[in-house]
């Protein structure tokens, strides 16, 4: 028996070029899916119109109420974008066999995964930008450009735990039909209890006690500090909590990934 020696075949495209094509394909797939785009882009605008706008021009304790609500909704917008789109895209592709097919090709899992992450973060960036522009125009919230950018950077940091959480749910759920209710069950109670919809001081004491143990609370606090709302704790505390949650969910995501590998690819 002769064994053919495999010499490395020169690649027509570099890994980076492949990644860019993959990101483009993932973005197109997301943008052409109205059932994901409508909640992603329109819900934050609707919430702002119904609940933010009526109070936007008030001032309380030296800060602008419009900016307070807009910062909270900005956090809400990116969490929703990442959690729903990333989870459902991972769960759907696993169930449809597309992920399995991709694994028979030379494409590496890390490349497919990086593309998904970058894609959903780009979409989150877009969704939050649309909300901030709409909010600042309709509610007369005017802040320096640096403040807007700082707000965006903070919500993108605040969404990291949810990216890891999405990977975990995406690898545990069997298809979009299972993933979707799980995400809803996690997302709405948590956003509410973290003070993203209604300011925490107006919520029951028990919710106020739970909030500091939820990642979205720390994201929300960090976002509001950016627009001048004082926080009881130093910013660094919120950052550490967020990184801690990210690490925890990452460990769980790796566990879920390995569990899927063990049952489907061993």
């Amino acid at each position: 028996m002769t064994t053919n020696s495999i010499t490395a075949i020169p690649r027509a495209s570099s890994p980076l070029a492949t990644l860019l094509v993959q990101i483009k394909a993932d973005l197109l797939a997301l943008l052409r899916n109205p059932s994901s785009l409508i909640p992603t882009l329109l819900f934050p605008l609707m919430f702002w119109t119904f609940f933010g706008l009526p109070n936007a021009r008030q001032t309380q304790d030296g800060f602008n109420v419009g900016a307070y609500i807009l910062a909270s909704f900005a956090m809400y917008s990116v969490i929703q974008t990442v959690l729903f789109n990333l989870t459902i895209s991972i769960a759907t592709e696993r169930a449809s066999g597309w992920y399995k097919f991709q694994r028979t090709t030379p494409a590496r899992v890390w490349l497919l995964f990086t593309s998904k992450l970058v894609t959903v973060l780009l979409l989150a960036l877009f969704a939050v930008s649309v909300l901030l522009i709409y909010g600042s125009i309709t509610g007369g919230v005017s802040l320096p450009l640096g403040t807007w950018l700082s707000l965006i950077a903070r919500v993108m940091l605040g969404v990291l735990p949810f990216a890891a959480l999405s990977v975990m749910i995406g690898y545990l759920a069997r298809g979009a039909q299972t993933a979707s209710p799980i995400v809803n069950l996690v997302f709405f109670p948590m956003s509410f209890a973290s003070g993203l919809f209604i300011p925490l001081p107006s919520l029951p004491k028990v919710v106020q006690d739970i909030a500091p143990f939820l990642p979205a609370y720390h994201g929300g606090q960090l976002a509001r500090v950016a627009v001048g709302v004082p926080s009881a704790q130093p910013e660094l505390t919120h950052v550490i909590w967020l990184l801690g949650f990210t690490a925890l969910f990452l460990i769980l995501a790796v566990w879920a990934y390995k569990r899927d590998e063990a049952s489907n690819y061993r």
Partner: protein
Amino acid sequence: MNPMNTTAVQLEGVSKSFGAVKAVTNLSLTVQAGEVVAVLGPNGAGKTTAISLMLGLRSPDAGSAKIFGRDPRDASARDRIGVMLQDSDVPSNLRVSEVVELIGRYYPQPLPVKTALEMADLSDKGGATCSSLSGGQKKRLCFALSVIGNPDVLFLDEPTAALDVEARRGFWEQVSGFAAKGKTIILTTHYLEEADALAQRIVVINQGSIVAQGTPAAIKARVGGKLVRFKWRGSSVDFAALPNVTRSSVTGDAVELFTSQPEAVLREVFSRNLEITDLEVKGGGLEEAFVKLTQARG
């Protein structure tokens, strides 16, 4: 390098169990470069598990799987294979040409998108959204995805399941066209006609083991089966007891006799003055051979 002496795919004593179920037991199979091999067997025989082991989608409990001497999980092995899985869907919101281009990007030396679409008879569907394709068109897209990387080895797992007869024949033409380029093809099927039409070698799998292999002609010769079929109404005759009949079945007035000597059987039938109609003698179909081979071990 003589391609005919190159081992393209090799399973060496592989076993694989899922819980208590033994899917594949001590199976060895070597496929030379340029060969077209059909792996044939009933549902649940272990065909898909065998393919998954070749592809590195599953790892064997014992034994080894190699593609061109490499671990099938190595990128250098995957660079050279194209795959059509049984149960893979395509991203519904992408266009046909977008998906084909994307998969081509994974490979070192892909074919032009246009060529892959032509090979799959999808030239006029490049701009169509995947979700708008019919079942047969989706299968053809999967075929285009399996050839876009210009692979040396093509794996087709039940490629024509759920296709109608006409679509199946069209698909065979596309596969034959690819085989004519000297490519290695491994396909699984439970359509015996498909194995006969495409393959140079048929490997019959049942209950996780190879029960027979050889050229389609050799498999037929080994069983030597002909089918004598006719309609007959009358008092019961024990057809199974007729000389030279290996197996018989009577359904209503339809009688089917399996035999290696149809002439002798017909002589016997006529000598008994049975009034038969709709007489047919079907030559050495794989169906009969297959039934016999798998039942022998069952």
